C-alpha cells in the first residue's frame, strides 16, 4: 500500500509538464470557472440582499390606525396607561406584540397619546400623577404632563401618536417603536425645547 501511494505521487510529479502553453490553457479554464461562479454568485446573492433588507420600510409603512378602546377609560384631566397589540406583528411574537402608551385627556375630547419609550434611550417612562411628571428609570429623564422635556438627558419631549375619535373609541396611528429616527408620527425636524441642555432655566 505504501508503495502504491509513492507511485501515485511520482506519477503526478511526472505529469506536471513545463510546457507553458498547456499551463496557460488550464489557467484560462480556471479563470472561466471562477468567472462562472462569480456570475452565478452575484446573480443569486443580489436578490438575497433584498431579503436581508426586508424589514426596512419607509416612514409610516408599518403604521395603521388601532383602537385603544372606549374613550370613557380615560377620564378628563388624567393620564392613564393604555395597551394595544401592535398592528404589525407575527404569530410567534407572544406578549412582545403588546405595546403600552400613556393617554392624557386634556378635556373637551382633546387627547395626547405619548409613547412609553423615553426619547433618550427608549426605556419605559412612568407617570406620577402626584407631581404631574413622567420619570424614566434608566438615566433619569423627566417630562412634564404635556410630554415636554423637564430635565435629564433626553434632548426632546416624549414621542406623541396621532389620534382620532371613532364613535366612542380612541384610535391612534401606531405601529413601530418610536426612536429619534422613527418617530411616532410624522414630525417636522425635531424642535429642541431645551436649547442649552437645561429644560427650565429661565432665559
Amino acid at each position: 500500500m505504501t508503495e502504491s501511494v509513492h507511485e501515485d505521487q511520482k506519477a503526478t510529479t511526472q505529469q506536471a509538464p513545463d510546457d507553458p502553453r498547456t499551463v496557460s490553457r488550464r489557467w484560462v479554464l480556471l479563470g472561466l470557472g471562477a468567472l462562472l461562479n462569480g456570475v452565478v454568485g452575484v446573480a443569486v446573492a443580489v436578490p438575497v440582499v433584498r431579503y436581508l433588507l426586508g424589514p426596512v420600510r419607509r416612514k409610516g409603512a408599518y403604521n395603521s390606525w388601532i383602537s385603544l378602546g372606549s374613550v370613557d377609560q380615560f377620564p378628563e384631566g388624567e393620564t392613564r396607561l393604555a395597551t394595544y397589540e401592535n398592528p404589525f406583528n407575527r404569530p410567534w411574537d407572544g406578549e412582545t406584540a403588546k405595546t403600552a402608551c400613556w393617554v392624557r385627556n386634556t378635556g373637551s375630547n382633546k387627547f395626547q397619546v405619548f409613547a412609553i419609550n423615553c426619547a433618550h434611550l427608549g426605556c419605559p417612562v412612568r407617570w406620577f400623577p402626584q407631581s404631574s411628571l413622567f420619570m424614566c428609570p434608566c438615566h433619569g429623564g423627566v417630562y412634564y404632563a404635556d410630554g415636554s422635556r423637564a430635565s435629564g438627558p433626553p434632548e426632546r419631549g416624549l414621542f406623541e401618536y396621532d389620534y382620532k375619535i371613532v364613535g366612542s373609541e380612541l384610535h391612534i396611528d401606531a405601529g413601530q417603536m418610536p426612536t429619534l429616527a422613527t418617530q411616532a408620527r410624522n414630525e417636522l425636524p425635531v424642535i429642541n425645547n431645551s436649547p442649552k441642555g437645561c429644560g427650565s432655566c429661565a432665559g
Partner: protein
Amino acid sequence: MRWLKATYDWLELRLKLEGPVKDAVLHPVPRNTASWWYVFGSAAFTLLMLQIVTGILLAIVYVPSGAEAWSSLQVLNHQLPLGWFLRAMHGWGSNFMVAVVLIHMAQVFLFGAYKFPREFTWTLGVFMLLMTLGMAFTGQVLRFDQDAYWGLGIGASIMARVPLIGGPLVHLLLGGPIIAGATLTRFFALHVFVIPGILLVFTALHVWMVLKLGINEWPMPGRTVNRKTYLQQYNHLAHTDGIPFVPGAFWKDLVFSGAILAAVAVCAAVFGPYGPTGQPDPTIIQTVPKPDFFFLWIYAVLSYLPASLETPFILTAPLVGIAVLLALPFYAGEGEKSWHRRPVAVLVLALVAVSWGTFTHLGTYTPWSPVMNAWSADTVPPHIVHDLSPTERQGAVVFQAKQCRNCHSLAGEGGQRGPALDSVAARMTEDQLIRQVVQGGGNMPAYGTSLSPPEVTALVRFLGTLHAPNEPAAKDASQAAMQSNPLPANSQ
C-alpha cells in the same frame, strides 16, 4: 498494545497529521516565555470551547421564539435536571471569557507582543475581542427577559442616532418595526451561527500565527525590536535558550485552563444562572432595566454625557477606540517591548483600567437613576420630623408625596439623581429654595404647576429645617452684611 500501534499507523498513513502536529508541539519557545503570564490566551480558547459545548447543550432545549423563549428558559432552570447548571456555566463562562480576553489583551499590550512580526495577530485579536463582546451582547438578548427587551430598546435608540440611515438601521436591528419575535430570531442567528463561525475561523488563524511566529519572548529593557534583525534574533534565542513548547510551556496552560474551568463551575454552582428576570411583556413598565456587567460602564458613560454631546460621542467614540487599537501595532511596531521603558503605555493601561473600574462601579449603583419607589418606600426618618411645627410636617408630607424622594436622599435613603438634602438649609436660603422648587433648573424639573402655593410654603419650611444642629442655616449674604454693618462704609 500492538493493535493500538497498528490502528495508529493505519490512521496516520491516511491522516498525515503526525508531521504538522509534531512541528507545532515541539517547536522551541524561549525559556522565559514558559511563564504564568502567558496562560491567558489558551484559557480564552478553553473558555470558547466551553461556551460552544454548553451552548449546543442549551440549544437542544431553548426555543428562539418571541412567545416561548422565556418559558423555555424557565423549563431549563426549573424542570430539566441540571438545566440550571448548564445555563449558569454558559452565563459565567461568558463572564470569564470576556474577562480573560481583556486580561490577555492587557498582557499582550504590556509585554509589547503586538510588535513586529505579530502586528496582524494583534489586529485579528482586536476583531476577536469585538466578537467576544458581540457574543456577550447577543447572548444577553437571547435571555429574552425584561432586561433584554429594554436593552434592545436602548440599542435601537442608539442606532436611530446615526444620521440619514438611522431609521433603516433601527428596522434592520429589530427585524421589523418593534422589538418582537423577529428581533429574537436574528439575534439567535448572530449568536449561534454568524459570530461564532467567524470567531472560530479567526481563532484558528490567530493560533496558527502564534505557532508559526513563535510566542513573544520575555521583554527585556534594551532588547529593542528591529524589522531587519528581529526574526534572526528570535530564532537564535528560541534555539539557543529555548525549550519545546510541549511540555515546557504547555503544562502551565493546561493547569491554568483547568483552574479557570473549575472556577466557572464553582461560580455556576454557587451563584446559579443569570435570570431570566421578568417576562418580556412591554406593558409591564414597573421595570428598572440594567445591562449585564460588562456593559455597565457604557450605561454609566451615557448618563454622564451632556445631551448635546451624546450623539456625537456614541457614534464616534467606539469607532475611534477601535481605530486606535487597530493602528497600535502599525504605529508602534518596533522599539522597546519592556514596560520598564514604556511609561506611556503603562499609564494608558492603568488609566483605562481605573476608568473602566470606576464607571463599572458607578453603573452598579446608578446614582443618576431616580429610585422609582423611594417616595412610597423610604419614609422620612422620625428624628427629622420629631420637633417640627405642623406646617413643616405638612412639608415633609409634600416632600414624600411629590416624588422629591425619588431623586433626593434623606439619611442615605432615596435617589441620588439630585443632591442629598440632609443639610440643604445650610446651603440655600428660603428664597433660593422657593425659586428652585418652583422654577427647577440645574437638572431639576419645575414644580410650579404641580404644587399649590401652600404646598410650596410647607415644603420650603420643611426643607428649611434640614441642617445639622451645629450647622448655621444659610443666610442671604447681602442682608447679613446690612445687618452686621448697618452704616455704609464712609471711606470714600
